[in-house]
């Protein structure tokens, strides 16, 4: 699509080139030119001008006082002093004082300068000519000739061997930089497919850090659990809990609609991954009457009484369930790892 094909007549007639006061008697819409300058009160009344001068100086003085106030506040108020100031509440005295004094010190410099410009500096409007951005044909011809001469002298177009090897070298040299990025992180391998959970690991209550017993978990209650052997002081705690966190609820077995869910539960105690299958927020807004669990980030809603099926929102698949049972000491334990990757979906998930 080149511009030449566009018929000129669709464009409006050339913009009004007339400037200055050209009153065309025939054209009531013609540009009358810049209106004559009208004086401000300060331009004609020296007393008003002096009033403005004093106002500007007053503002600059206020700024100086505010800076002194800033330094004084810095020295006077301890950093932990809290005061009640209506309507802001119980705020830090230092933050409040420093902010207001700094704000005033800056604002009054600006206000003074602007008031000065508005009342005392000339307010005669001036017109500046514009010039087209594009160069004149002569300039363009000169540049093209220079370029042609330079290009010819370099032999860039003629010596193809040089040109092609240069392109090759330039294309290849960034590869070194890309190769260096390799050690930014490990390859994914199967890391996202497994969590810390293995057969026999007890479910540890996140509140008490004690193993959970089935009788601890009442219908309608909500408990969070992590695998036995994980401690908040572990170096990899954050990375492990990001996958292993569990949400434990108890549902009357006859209310569980999904057969597999019931099978993997212990007397209605079900353990679901706490990590949302949408983008990985810890999902745990459990409504105990509906058994719905909502994600606070993007509102995916899962039905915990029906295999954690997605019933609303952007998640694409149910929350993975951990198969649990009771060990011989009477504590809840995992019967293995999750059978599918926890958290958000990814290309290799399948």
């Amino acid at each position, binding site marked *: 699509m080149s511009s030449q094909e566009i018929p000129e007549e669709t464009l409006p007639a050339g913009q009004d080139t007339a400037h200055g006061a050209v009153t065309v008697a025939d054209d009531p819409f013609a540009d009358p030119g810049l209106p004559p300058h009208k004086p*401000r009160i300060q331009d004609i009344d020296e007393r008003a001008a002096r009033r403005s001068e004093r106002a500007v100086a007053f503002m600059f003085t206020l700024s100086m006082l505010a800076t002194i106030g800033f330094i004084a506040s810095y020295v006077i108020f301890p950093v932990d002093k809290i005061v009640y100031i209506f309507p802001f509440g*119980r705020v830090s005295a230092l933050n409040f004082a420093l902010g207001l004094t700094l704000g005033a010190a800056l604002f009054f410099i600006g206000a003074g300068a602007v008031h000065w410009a508005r009342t005392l500096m000339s307010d005669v409007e001036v017109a500046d000519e514009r010039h087209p951005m594009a160069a004149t044909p002569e300039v363009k011809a000169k540049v093209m000739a220079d370029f042609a001469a330079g290009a010819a002298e370099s032999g860039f177009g003629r010596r193809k061997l040089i040109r092609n090897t240069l392109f090759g070298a330039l294309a290849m040299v960034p590869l070194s930089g890309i190769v260096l990025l390799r050690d930014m992180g490990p390859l994914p391998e199967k890391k996202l497919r497994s969590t810390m959970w293995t057969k026999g690991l007890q479910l540890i209550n996140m509140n008490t850090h004690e193993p959970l017993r089935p009788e601890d978990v009442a219908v309608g*209650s909500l408990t969070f659990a992590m695998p036995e052997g994980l401690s908040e002081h572990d170096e990899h705690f954050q990375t492990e809990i990001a996958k292993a966190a569990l949400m434990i609820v108890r549902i009357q077995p006859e209310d569980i609609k999904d057969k597999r869910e019931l099978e993997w539960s212990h007397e209605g105690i079900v353990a679901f991954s706490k990590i949302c299958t949408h983008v990985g927020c810890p999902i745990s807004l459990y409504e105990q009457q509906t058994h719905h669990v909502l994600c606070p980030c993007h509102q995916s809603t899962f039905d915990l009484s029906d295999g954690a099926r997605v019933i609303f929102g952007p998640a694409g698949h149910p929350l993975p369930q951990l198969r649990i049972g009771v060990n011989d000491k009477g504590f809840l334990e995992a019967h293995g790892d999750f059978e599918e990757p926890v958290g958000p979906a990814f290309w290799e998930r399948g």
Partner: protein
Amino acid sequence: MKKLSARRRHPLAAVVVLLLALAATGGLYAAFAPAGTAKADETAQSLAIEEGKKLYSVGCASCHGTGGQGTTDGPSLVGVGSAAVDFQVGTGRMPAQQPGAQIPRKKVIYSQAEIDQLAAYVASLGAGPIAPTEGQYSPDGADIAKGGELFRTNCAQCHNFTGEGGALTYGKYAPSLEGVDPKHLYEAMQTGPQNMPSFPDTTMPEKEKKDIIAYVQAVNSDKADSPGGLKLGGLGPVSEGLFAWIFGLGALIAVAIWVAAHTAKAKKS
């Protein structure tokens, strides 16, 4: 187990459960009641139950049934315990005014004495969580920081970082915890009102509930500090964004209008 659950909906089931529950409360009470004052307490207790029953039949029976067995308009109160009554009536949620996604907190219409009588009556219907004493819920001496961690694990997902409340599905919501009595906070965790799950002592011991209450008091009460200035509802980036647009950019545009405006001329033409 299966046999039992199959008979769960038998017409007489409620009666059986009621009798069993009554027997259980009676038994428990007999076991735990302090020996010396048992007699006096017993009469006071039965008086309270009597009074509570009268209040119940006027204010509650139309929805929860004459014997607390529940109707289509309200759930059974057998086994909900005095803690649930104290919470529901003590926060004004009960008696409910109109059906909706959720029963809201309202003005309390019963006195604490009446609430206690109602609680005593409902507790007599079947064993359930018992309303806590001040020693149980008072936040004095609790570990605020531990409470904060527990709050973020168990509560913040619905009630927000500092208990400002949040949305649930289909018009339900987790209410703001601002100004909620420590006792009611405790009872809510204990009983799990409406759609809130419960956090029973078996999974969240009494001490931890106290820690949580202490944290809520520290960050969301009129004594809570907000060193940076206006809290903007404690809602995070949405209210901050609105503030930046309206007051930040708004103020700057007002200033810009002043800077760019032409100064008043000496004479009007």
